[in-house]
């Protein structure tokens, strides 16, 4: 039934993405498990993103500290800086920065790689060799991003705190021990748990969206470019929506 081309196309897109996610869930637990490919992808996502995450985390920590100081200084409360930074980084900045960086770096990578495999018939080549390309390509990549983004988030948080500490140390002469002591006294296990969970969701989002876009790339070289581009844009969009929803849920949980 045709309601209008736009509505129809949207319904089809929703149906196709839902089937894609469903297939992922089904095949996640089926044998064989391509362990070597999973390790390779974890390396590509985790280790190869370290330099970029180091830089952005560090800069975020320093800049956020510098920018927050005047507001706190107005109340003579610069001693609250470590607490403020730790809470901000762990609860919000580190998950978001890590997810956005990974969406840009890893998402475009996966989108372009799977897209070019699609248009050059490499995915069909796997199928005719009785290899399940979904299992081999999509499941391994999505599991890798889901596992690696939380790890990178924690790392980003640490690097950000180091950046912040350098700045605080330079200005307020706070020692490393007291910086982390005040910082960590403000956060709870719920904060850590919430951020890690959030990062799992972000990692899954990046992996599944990029794989979906690459796996369904339209033919031709523009198809590859479009898949890479759409992977990044859609991942970032969905990450912001999820951030908003998850914050509501966490704040509701804090009420208990």
């Amino acid at each position: 039934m045709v309601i209008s081309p736009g509505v129809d196309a949207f319904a089809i897109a929703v149906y196709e993405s839902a089937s894609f996610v469903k297939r992922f869930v089904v095949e996640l637990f089926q044998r064989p498990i391509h362990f070597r490919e999973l390790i390779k992808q974890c390396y590509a996502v985790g280790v190869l993103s370290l330099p970029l995450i180091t830089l952005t985390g560090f800069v975020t920590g320093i800049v956020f500290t510098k920018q927050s100081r005047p507001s706190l200084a107005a109340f003579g409360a610069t001693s609250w800086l470590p607490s403020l930074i730790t809470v901000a980084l762990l609860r919000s900045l580190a998950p978001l920065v890590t997810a956005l960086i990974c969406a840009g770096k890893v998402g475009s990578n996966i989108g372009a790689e799977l897209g070019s495999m699609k248009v050059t018939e490499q995915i069909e080549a796997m199928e005719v060799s009785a290899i399940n390309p979904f299992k081999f390509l999509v499941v391994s990549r999505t599991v890798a991003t889901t596992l690696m983004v939380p790890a990178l988030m924690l790392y980003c948080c640490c690097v950000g705190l180091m950046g912040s500490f350098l700045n605080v140390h330079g200005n307020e002469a706070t020692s490393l021990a007291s910086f982390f002591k005040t910082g960590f006294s403000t956060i709870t296990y719920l904060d850590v748990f919430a951020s890690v969970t959030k990062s799992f969701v972000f990692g899954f989002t990046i992996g599944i969206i990029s794989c979906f876009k690459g796996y369904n790339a339209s033919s031709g070289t523009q198809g590859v470019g479009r898949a890479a581009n759409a992977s990044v844009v859609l991942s970032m969009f969905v990450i912001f929506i999820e951030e908003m929803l998850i914050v509501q849920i966490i704040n509701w949980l804090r009420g208990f």
Partner: protein
Amino acid sequence: MQREPQTQGGVPRPTVISVRGLTKSFGDRDVLRGVDLDVHEAENVVVLGRSGSGKSVLIKIIIGLLEPDEGSVEVLGQTVRGLSQRAMDALRRQVGFSFQNSALYDSMNVSENLAFPLRMNTTGLSTHEVRDRVYDALEAVGLVSAVMQMPSELSGGQRKRIGIARTLILRPKIMLYDEPTAGLDPITSGEINDLINQVQQTYHTSSIIITHDLTCARNTADRVAMLLDGRMQRVGSFAEVFDTTDPQVKSFYDYNFTNSEPR
């Protein structure tokens, strides 16, 4: 070149691929409109047709990459449609598919390209055995020297050979070649034609060779089938098919052999 008759001592050879009344359309474009085709054991059948006539669609339906609208396909006695994934995989291990653009895995070198389908489809092969099978397959296509190269370093003809080697490594009973000589110079095309014949003789495979290259057809075909307007219009030996005044068939022949003469 008519090498062997379709009967052996008066007994017809068994049919390995049987296509009946196949139709397929994309949107409002009818690509296949009732294709019938039989391939017998150890036979090379060439399917000729213009670009866009649906040749690739036909063999992709045969291997189950595309679903037909109507009609039936039987491969090695099994109806392709409605096979479970497991049965489909078992069937696909017995069918080699050489892609038009070779479809080598860009991220792997030649040796890994060949070992990959083998490792994924067999259990308990030692590294040593895998290596031996890789070298056997490379020897069969005469490209042992390329074993450590990346696909991007290979020429078009070499890519085709590696693509064929990658399918041979699973020792298929049937080979499907999609435009094996497209985009190659005449000498390399000739080598690929020889390779196709050699594969058929060494491994006793039955093949469908899709092409619009009449030199390839003439050199490899036991039988030729001409795909025109979505149907198999003429089936027979190369000479039989082109012994006609049908303008569409004639123009196909003339285009290949007359236009390529120096003017």
